[in-house]
């Protein structure tokens, strides 16, 4: 199961990233488990300095922006099959 984390304190963009990630992964039919990380201490532990950030299988893939739909899907494919 793909472990997905959305890092962000709950700002509008963080919610958007969560929505878009869910939409992308659902559409691609990839099984995943999504956790929202909202505590600043936990976010900082990932070394992220601007949110929202997207993490898959404990790897930080983007920060401070919302990646494109296709980008999310291709990251997920690379990691779901591994």
């Amino acid at each position: 199961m793909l472990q997905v984390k959305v890092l962000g304190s709950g700002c509008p963009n963080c919610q958007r990233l969560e929505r878009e990630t869910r939409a992308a992964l659902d559409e691609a039919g990839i099984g995943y488990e999504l956790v929202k990380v909202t505590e600043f201490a936990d976010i900082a532990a990932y070394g992220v300095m601007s949110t929202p950030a997207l993490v898959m299988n404990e790897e930080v893939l983007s920060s401070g922006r919302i990646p494109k739909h296709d980008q999310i899907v291709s990251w997920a494919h690379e990691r779901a099959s591994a």
Partner: protein
Amino acid sequence: MATNTQHFPKINTDRRAFLLVGLLALVWGILYNNLQPIADWLTYTLLGLSRESAVGQSLNFFIYDVPKILLLLTGMIFLITLAQTFINTERVRAVVEKRGAGVGNVMASLFGAITPFCSCSSVPLFIGFVQAGIPLGITFSFLITSPIMNEVAFVLLLGLFGWQVALMYLVSGVVIGVVAGMILGRLKLERYVEEFVFQVRANRVAVGLIEEKPTWLERFEEAAEKTREIVGKVWLFVIIGIGIGAFIHGFIPEDALTGIMGQDTWWSVPAAVLLGIPLYSNAAGVIPIVSAMLGKGAALGTVLAFMMSVVALSLPEMIILRKVLKPRLIAIFIGVVALSIVVTGYLFNLVV
């Protein structure tokens, strides 16, 4: 479909993106330079209002200013957000880390000037700076200039007051950050920072963050997206603000404000700063009103101080900062920033 486009040479899509942006810039330029004749024609020819009447002047001012400011806002915010796509927070931190007080403060403050202040970036960035062992004073330089320098405020000043005032705003925002940061740095305030900030250890290297360089098309897209977001949030306030400003412009007599906001009224600067602290969400609407006040005898320093205090010190910002700073430090922070703004206001009133 989209996976296919990645195989096309980047140059091609980039060239098309440049072409489109260039074309839009051209349309923008033509529109922007013909607003006064259009406004004149609408008010004086089409509606047949007299050039001398208060109604005619107010309406003309409104019809000219609204599209002008909205165009300027869209164009400039696009450029600013485009510039922001080139800023890499990790790299900035690495550069600031090597500098001591002084140069470090200036760099952190400049960095704060171009970064928007929001819960999305400011708190994680604060923690990131502290983690890297960057002195608190330098981190504060960032934390002070970032909210003072608001891109919407900057553009409105540019459009309504001219580039000199906008530049003055920029320079004083950075100077306030540097000076206040250096003062705060001397005060040894580490104990008023929430403990967890010092305990956090980044235990994972942000591997994926070494992303490939975005193409110009991607930069343009990101800037367009952010522009839509920012302009979408403020346009209504701007129009309302210009509406009230237009009313002041046409109906309030000249010199009406000289007594309370003029250069010779010593208490007007601190009063303006105090008044500005609780005002926030209407920053976009306040500036057009304030600009009309300037035409009625208010002093520039007073007006700038008011505006900076509206933009820089606000409840939402304090709520964000509360996550990492203890109340005592927030109070000190407000005090130092407010004081710096008051001094800046007096300085401008003296000089201009």
